[in-house]
């Protein structure tokens, strides 16, 4: 059964609608629920759901569309009844707070005259207008929205620079300012290490590792993924480093990014070398571990965190220490039950930077890794829904998130994919990330629990054993609770490693073992 309801002129924020779609689908037990504004892209998605073009006649971008697929009419009726309450929920008022939600920035400032940051997650085409207004009023800005044109990003960042303001983003998912987590961020103790990152999950992984090693973060400034491109030229990374260099609380500065354009990289490292504070830079995928004066290059996010912690304690950063005996023991345990055929890795990631890092760490040791995000065309999957040989998938990539929530918010897509991968008798290892913190699903481990047990059961039924290896990016202070998440995964039979690097190292051992046997 399918049903389409059109509500004229009822604008809603698209991200809140995604959450609504998810709640609706889970709550009413539907096959599919899609609540969205009637923009052309969404109409195409509806067409794929089997909604005919005629039903969408006269639908405009300000009209709210509710499309439901279910086994029977009763479920659809039930879902339709639930919608008003769910919509109310998205407009919940703070307790004892100001009930009125202002429509204009002027009015918002009247209600919160001391406001110093504007957080923007409205649709990309409108985000830069709001950002400009905020900067002109002397407010720092974080843009979570993507789809902001590059030239607008450059103009906004130049304006911010002139005014001595932060312009984090666009497409900035993570920041920690004055100890407060913004958007997708973990609850990390306050400390002396300052971070500037062009990657959200990169900042999350490093800040959680710092917390695990007993230190804390002064500030983590997100810049958006394009900041270190040739066009933007690292405007905000430079501003971030400058501010952290001036900040009395910050003793060590960490910069995290995918490998930037060479001339931009040079500017960043020059600035770090001369900033007067010890620093660490991690250009994900560049494996060299070296130093240039007070600047240390880290080959992994885990290394970046451990180097920063060492510098903070006045020590010289050394290589990451791993318990070889323990790794060996785990690898032996995991491989002992495997069948002859089992030799490949399938990595299913929700964090793009973590996927990227895993690819870089593993491909030098175990040979080609196929991926939907591989830099080299040769190793790009033609169909991201079909893995081959050793594959690592970034499920947060546009291909999977068009019209759908990000897998950190809705892990159901990954659970499905895990079961699919387990059907392949050549698969030996599933490698997973689990990102906790604000913004993420309230129980990501619980959401894949039955997928882990199911996948393992499928391998066992064939007379083999499937290793499932995960790392958790999180802290004890996160709303989901690091310990609880770890226990859930371990109960399901997962090997839970402390970092993405450590998980990759374990995978490397297992794959090498399998290669020897085959």
């Amino acid at each position, binding site marked *: 059964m399918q049903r389409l309801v059109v509500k004229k002129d009822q*604008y809603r*924020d698209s991200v*809140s609608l995604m959450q609504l779609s998810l709640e609706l689908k889970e709550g009413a037990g539907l096959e599919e629920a899609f609540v969205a504004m009637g923009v052309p892209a969404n109409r195409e998605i509806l067409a794929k759901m089997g909604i005919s073009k005629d039903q969408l006649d006269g639908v405009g971008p*300000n009209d709210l569309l509710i499309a439901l697929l279910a086994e029977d009419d009763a479920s659809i009726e039930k879902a339709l009844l639930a919608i008003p309450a769910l919509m109310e929920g*998205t407009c*919940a008022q*703070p307790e004892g*707070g*100001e*009930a*009125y*939600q*202002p*429509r*204009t*920035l*002027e*009015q*918002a*400032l*009247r*209600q*919160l005259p*001391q*406001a*110093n*940051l*504007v*957080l*923007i*997650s*409205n*649709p990309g085409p*409108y985000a830069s*207008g*709001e950002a400009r207004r*905020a900067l002109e009023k*002397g407010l*720092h800005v974080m843009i*979570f*929205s993507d789809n902001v044109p590059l030239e607008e990003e450059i103009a906004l960042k130049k304006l911010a620079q002139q005014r*001595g*303001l*932060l312009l984090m983003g666009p497409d900035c998912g993570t920041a920690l*300012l*004055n100890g*407060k*987590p*913004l*958007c997708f961020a973990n*609850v990390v103790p306050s400390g002396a290490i300052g971070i500037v990152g062009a990657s959200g999950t990169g900042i999350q992984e490093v800040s959680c590792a710092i917390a695990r090693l007993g230190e804390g973060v002064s*500030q983590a400034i997100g810049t958006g993924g394009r900041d270190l491109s040739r066009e933007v030229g690292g405007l905000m990374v430079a*501003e971030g480093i400058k*501010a952290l260099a*001036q*900040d009395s*609380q910050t003793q060590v500065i960490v910069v995290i990014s995918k490998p930037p354009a060479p001339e931009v990289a040079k500017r960043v490292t020059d600035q770090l070398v001369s900033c007067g504070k010890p620093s660490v830079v991690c250009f994900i995928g560049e494996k060299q571990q070296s130093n240039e004066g007070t600047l240390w290059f880290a080959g992994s996010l885990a290394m970046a965190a451990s180097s920063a912690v060492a510098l903070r304690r006045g020590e010289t950063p050394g290589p990451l220490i791993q318990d070889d005996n323990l790794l060996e023991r785990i690898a032996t345990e995991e491989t002992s039950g495997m069948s002859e055929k089992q030799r490949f890795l399938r990595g299913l990631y929700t964090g793009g930077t973590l996927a990227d890092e895993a690819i870089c760490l593993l491909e030098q040791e175990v040979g080609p890794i196929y991926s939907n995000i591989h830099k080299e065309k040769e190793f790009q999957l033609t169909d991201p829904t079909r893995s081959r040989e050793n594959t690592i998938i970034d499920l947060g990539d546009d291909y999977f998130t068009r019209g759908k929530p990000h897998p950190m918010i809705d892990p159901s897509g990954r659970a499905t994919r895990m079961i699919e991968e387990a059907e392949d008798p050549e698969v030996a290892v599933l490698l997973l990330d689990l990102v906790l913190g*604000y*913004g993420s699903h309230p129980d990501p481990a619980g959401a894949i629990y039955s997928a882990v047990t199911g996948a393992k059961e499928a391998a066992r039924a064939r007379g083999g054993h499937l290793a499932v290896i995960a790392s958790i990016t999180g802290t004890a202070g996160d*709303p989901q609770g690091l310990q609880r998440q770890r226990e859930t995964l371990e109960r399901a039979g997962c090997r839970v490693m402390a970092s993405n690097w450590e998980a990759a190292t374990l995978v490397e051992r297992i794959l090498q073992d399998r290669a020897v046997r085959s």
Partner: protein
Amino acid sequence: MSVVDLFGQSLQVINIGLESFAQNLRQERVPVVQMDWRPPAAGAEGVGETPLRIDRKQANREAVDRLLRGLPVLTGVSTAGAVIPGMRKDLFLHAGPPISWERMCGPMRGAVIGGILFEGLAASEEDAEQLAASGAIAFEPCHEHDAVGPMAGVTTWSMPVWVVENRTFGNRAYCTLNEGLGKVLRYGAYAPPVIEHLRWMAEELGPVLALTMERHGPLDLRALIAQALQMGDEGHNRSRAGTSLLIRELAPELVRLKVKRKKLSEVLRFLHSNDHTFLNLSMPSAKCMLDAANGVEGSSMLVTMTRNGTDFGIRLAGLPERWFTAPANLVRGLYFPGYSESDAALDIGDSAITETAGLGGFAMAAAPAIVQFVGGTPQDALRLTQEMYEITLAESQSWQIPNLGFRGTPSGIDLFRVLTSGILPSINTGIAHKDPGVGMIGAGLVQPPWNCFQSAYQAYVQQYAATLSGNGDNQRIKEEKQ
């Protein structure tokens, strides 16, 4: 400023978009204001980007300052012919922007016929209609004669009027006396009892009130409205408190007049029986306050919003005497039993002058008794008023809303804020039957048509856009830069 300054401050966030981000921050004890963001309205693109040859903000400061400093005082009761500037026996004033007999709606036509019969210019309905259509009678807006009138607003030579003076600036405004409820001229009724009642008002009520005011002396209406707001009025759809306060003021003097007690009793009984008595005083109060701001060079503040049942019209302080009109809307509201939207006339009356000055819908939060008209709950009323702060330039210093912590009412509508926010002024209003003479059939909420604001903006830009020096060419500097 520099980024490092932020690090010492406590984080306070305005959140535009995904509400869960705000909830997360609140959980971390960060003060957050969640915005109710919506895409810009169609036709508002580029508003405010054209360079101007005047300082608009400064001009608006001056205009709204003149509005807020206004001190409306009731000085007496006279007749239209005696006091309204430019009044003639063959001139009928009406509500709303200019309109011809041919385009008038039912209630407006009925009121004109009634006015002709009342003035004795014709003896029958047919003759009256013929006279109205003949061109022998001129029709002009009340607004162009320092006057305002509720609903049809028809004002003729012999009608008694309240005289209200703005003590700060010396200008005056006039308004007829309210006729009460039921079948009345302002809703287009003209049957013999209606005309008889108008005669009683002209011959008994008007003179008694005129004498009473002579004994009483000037009455501060600004203070009286302030009181009424604290007593549950909003100055437009609810005038019960204002009416009561007025009677309290007048009664001690009224009873001392050398007029038969029976007549005095009739006057008091009439004032008491009609909750809308005070509407005809809050309207001219608003009118004379706004007129004082009219003509401030460069100001984009509205000095008029009004309707004639066919068109809605607005005027700007910085473009004096120019009307920007568009077809009037249907009122959304509650209907008396037996009536529905299909019976309703389109939006009509000068009473939206109260909203223009910061009363009525703008003060809705002060009037929980009538929230059914705007959605049903006191919360709806609060939200409505709070929304109006987004499109206004200032808050009243005299008129306060207890439910909002005695915040001043939102005052001085700015054309630019309306366009950029996409928020239209909310107007409380009565609903007239579309046929003459049936009367009021409900009350509710109405908004001006968006087009008025767009055409006003175009005219404003044409008038005030910066020009290239010397050659008189009106090309925009911005275009030249591109």
